[in-house]
């Protein structure tokens, strides 16, 4: 037979290609990257208006405020991870790819995290200063956001995979995944709060880290299964 045997790319090369593809797509629509950050800036600016501009009062609320906004802006973007691929048929082709879906969805989530949570964590010191978070807590804020938003992206991916087949999945996805965001919020804001009062935040960061390990190990299974169900339906 003249049909040659296939030279399918290795899984690592394929996933790197996917990562590059997703990042290129994001870079060509910079407004999508900017939106969550602008949302963050706007909401941070609302709190001094609502709570009063007293600096020490704001500083007390700052860890919780920053973490809740991070959570909401992550929620805002989680719907988009697989949507355009579902609509143009790329998702079907991804499911038929010979490479393990576990790793390809991990590449999708990694790309999503890099353009949302990772950027947010990098810029968070600016927002922290806006609401008077003490400077010694900024390290803990960045570290907790780096770990925590990665968990949020993974958990959000499950909701995205399950609702991608629905025309308007936005509200449903919030109801589905917000309960799973709670532990991240609790330990993330606790890490920052401890840093504010000068206590070590390491234990909370370690718990966030272990949540991340658990999410990396388990969430892609759920995402892959969710995508198969959504495409099958």
């Amino acid at each position, binding site marked *: 037979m003249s049909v040659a045997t296939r030279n399918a790319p290795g899984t690592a090369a394929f996933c790197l*290609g996917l990562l590059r593809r997703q990042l290129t797509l994001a870079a060509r629509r910079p407004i999508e990257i900017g939106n969550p950050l602008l949302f963050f800036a706007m909401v941070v600016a609302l709190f001094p208006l609502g709570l009063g501009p007293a600096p020490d009062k704001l500083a007390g609320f700052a860890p919780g405020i920053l973490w809740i906004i991070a959570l909401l802006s992550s929620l805002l973007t989680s719907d988009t991870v697989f949507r355009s691929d579902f609509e143009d048929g790329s998702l079907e082709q991804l499911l038929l790819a010979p490479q393990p879906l576990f790793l390809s969805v991990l590449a999708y989530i990694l790309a999503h995290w890099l353009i949302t949570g990772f950027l947010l964590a990098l810029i968070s010191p600016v927002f922290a200063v806006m609401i008077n978070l003490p400077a010694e807590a900024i390290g803990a804020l960045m570290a907790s956001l780096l770990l925590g938003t990665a968990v949020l992206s993974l958990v959000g991916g499950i909701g995205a995979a399950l609702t991608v087949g629905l025309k308007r999945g936005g509200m449903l996805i919030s109801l589905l995944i917000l309960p799973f965001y709670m532990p991240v919020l609790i330990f993330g804001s606790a890490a920052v709060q401890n840093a504010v009062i000068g206590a070590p935040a390491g234990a909370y960061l370690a718990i966030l880290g272990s949540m991340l390990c658990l999410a990396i190990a388990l969430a892609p299974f759920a995402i892959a299964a969710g995508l198969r169900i959504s495409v099958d339906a």
Partner: protein
Amino acid sequence: MTESGPLLSVHDLCLERGGRELFRELSFAIYPGQLIQVDGANGAGKTSLFRILAGLSRYGFAGRVERHAPLLYLGHQPAVKALLTPRENLAWHVAGEARYNNDQIESALASVGLYGYEDVLSNTLSAGQHRRVNLARLYLSQCPLWLLDEPFTAIDKSGVAELEKQMLFHVERGGAVVITSHQLLRVSHRVQMLNLNEGLLA
């Protein structure tokens, strides 16, 4: 790859949608060198059958599908990203079939009449050209079995003739093609009809 075995075989496939039986006890096998056109009116279940054959539909039907060879499935959606160029669309294709080098991609795009469009963003291309980007995969693919669901939609006459030539080439090199189309194929090869009620017609 086995020389004589079927590329895909289907046993006693039954499918019901919305209380209507689309097909029952459908059994057939696809061997290398076969060119099969699926016959049926709109809503007869052709796309459902293709999705079952490809493995996208995994529940809601009875029967067994055995895939013995890698397959290429082209569905209704072109799977082309508007924000990527045709070259990037093929180089980073999510189907993960193979690594193609630039020459292969350029010649495939030239074959579907997209010479000169390799590096423009796909959102400047027409709907037919989007489909052509997708169809360029037929010139790259090494999969022995092709499942083509309405590949001629939005393709002009000369494009259809080119595709027929490529399908003929594929069948003659030992591949197999299953296609749904409402127009008759004009190829110098035997086209077998697959009827959803009666199975593969001799």
